[in-house]
């Protein structure tokens, strides 16, 4: 099955607004560079030129490579002033002939929540309030009742508990993603390698996507993300783990900054039980294909026809 990315809407109105804005930007830019006595008024810690530049920044998919480069440099300057460390923002592109898929062995998962830890160490989520992409559900054995699933099982009791099994959920990178259909501004879309990404600069924070997602995968920054400097991961990607703002949506990106370079996602690396299998669905020799072809696999809420690229299996 193949789903194409939805075409972008008619941009007539946006273009018009941008043109008007551009005039203003040129004026302000002249102001910023022209008179040295005024210097650049510091709005927050970001220069006026950068403020204006990011205000008029286009949608990721409509930016030329040069514009993307400028946007990245603006972001790097901003993070530098915010966190006092050099944060490198990369922009790895989807690899050809790659479609990412994930499988998780629920008979191996012990509920340690190590994947959650690995994920938050990698992906620059807010640490207070604690924003986590992976939710490990404690489930009663012999049933698949998500109503009684408990994500808050305490860290003071040993796991696995008798009579329970553990079902980690995160973004399933649906091949037919309802979140993408729900977004009114197309700030989220499915990339050719199957990763569903968000342009954090384009997101208006309406949270429609979170409503549409059947897997509770999307997490919203209700407050200014609190990311202590010593927890910043400085190797980031534009569409994945670069630090976010208040009022934008975020979620798992299969660690696009790692996986697009051939590395494993942080949760796979952190899992001490080897329950997580990640790989290329288009490669018939990959581990994930072996699992799909040889194990009893199932997908969560399959009846919704979202075609998740995240399977569970048991052995």
């Amino acid at each position, binding site marked *: 099955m193949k789903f194409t990315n939805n075409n972008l809407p008619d941009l007539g109105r946006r273009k018009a607004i941008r043109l008007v804005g551009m005039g203003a930007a040129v004026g302000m830019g002249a102001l910023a560079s022209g008179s040295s006595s005024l210097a650049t008024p510091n709005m927050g810690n970001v220069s006026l030129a950068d403020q204006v530049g990011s205000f008029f920044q286009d949608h990721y998919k409509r930016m030329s490579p040069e514009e993307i480069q400028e946007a990245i440099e603006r972001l790097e300057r901003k993070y530098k002033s915010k966190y006092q460390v050099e944060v490198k923002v990369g922009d790895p592109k989807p690899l050809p002939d790659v479609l990412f898929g994930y499988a998780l062995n629920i008979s191996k998962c012990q509920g340690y929540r190590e994947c959650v830890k690995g994920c938050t160490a990698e992906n620059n989520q807010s640490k207070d309030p604690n924003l986590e992409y992976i939710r490990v559900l404690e489930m009663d054995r012999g049933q698949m009742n998500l109503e009684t699933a408990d994500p808050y099982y305490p860290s003071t009791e040993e796991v696995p508990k008798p009579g329970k099994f553990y079902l980690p959920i995160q973004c399933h990178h649906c091949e037919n993603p309802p979140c993408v259909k729900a977004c009114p501004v197309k700030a989220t879309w499915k990339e050719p390698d199957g990763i569903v990404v968000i342009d954090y600069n384009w997101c208006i924070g309406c949270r429609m996507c979170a409503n549409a997602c059947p897997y509770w995968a999307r997490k919203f920054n209700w407050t200014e993300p609190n990311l202590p400097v010593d927890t910043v991961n400085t190797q980031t990607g534009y569409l994945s783990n670069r630090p976010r703002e208040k009022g934008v949506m975020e979620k798992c990106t299969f660690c696009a900054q790692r996986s697009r370079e051939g590395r494993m996602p942080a949760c796979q690396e952190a899992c001490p039980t*080897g329950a997580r299998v990640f790989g290329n669905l288009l490669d018939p020799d990959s581990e994930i294909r072996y699992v799909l072809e040889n194990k009893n696999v199932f997908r969560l809420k399959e009846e919704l026809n979202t075609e998740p690229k995240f399977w569970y299996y048991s052995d």
Partner: protein
Amino acid sequence: MNRWLLWMFLLCLPGPLWALDTEEIKSIPETAKVAHQYDDPLEAVARVPAFVTDSRIDQLIYYPCENCHTKGMVAPNDKVRTLELMHMEINLDHGKGRFWCTTCHDINQRNQLISLKKQRISFDQPYLLCGQCHFARQRDFFQGAHGKRKDNWFGPKKLTNCTECHDPHVPQIRARLPRKEPDPRLGLSIDNSDKHHRHQPWDQAKEEHKDEVHQ
């Protein structure tokens, strides 16, 4: 009289079972393949995707074992006994009492492991040894459905060795404490006071609205 009939009947019962025992079952057709154990344990890796593992020898505290065992300090002793001088920390809980050290450790060449068919196996390749019994797991390990691939999903494949996760003497994975639980949604809290019914954050909301009648 009835009793005699019953006896007669019972004696006849096994008859049909013997009748089943025919030539058809006894003779194996020419084309059938007999399952065979590998003569060389390395045969198991010959037809699976190429992979490497990290060395285990570097991680072993007592290696090289020969330093004590074959260089004359300790005489080989195959007797099942309680160890009193060395290796007391090993609490062999594997194979339900059927194993002794020399089931897997070569008594003559102490730096090596040994298969049940007496082939030597390196400490770096415990998957060959474990696979003798755990053959289904071994296949899954080679193919990527058991154990774990390290570093990359693409390019040269490095697998986690069996003994990196399982203590071969006590292979079961133990229960332990999980990492910190997630924060509940803003404005809600988790109540862990009642062990039998853990109050979920949403119970609080239910409680607050319990008087509202929904029509």
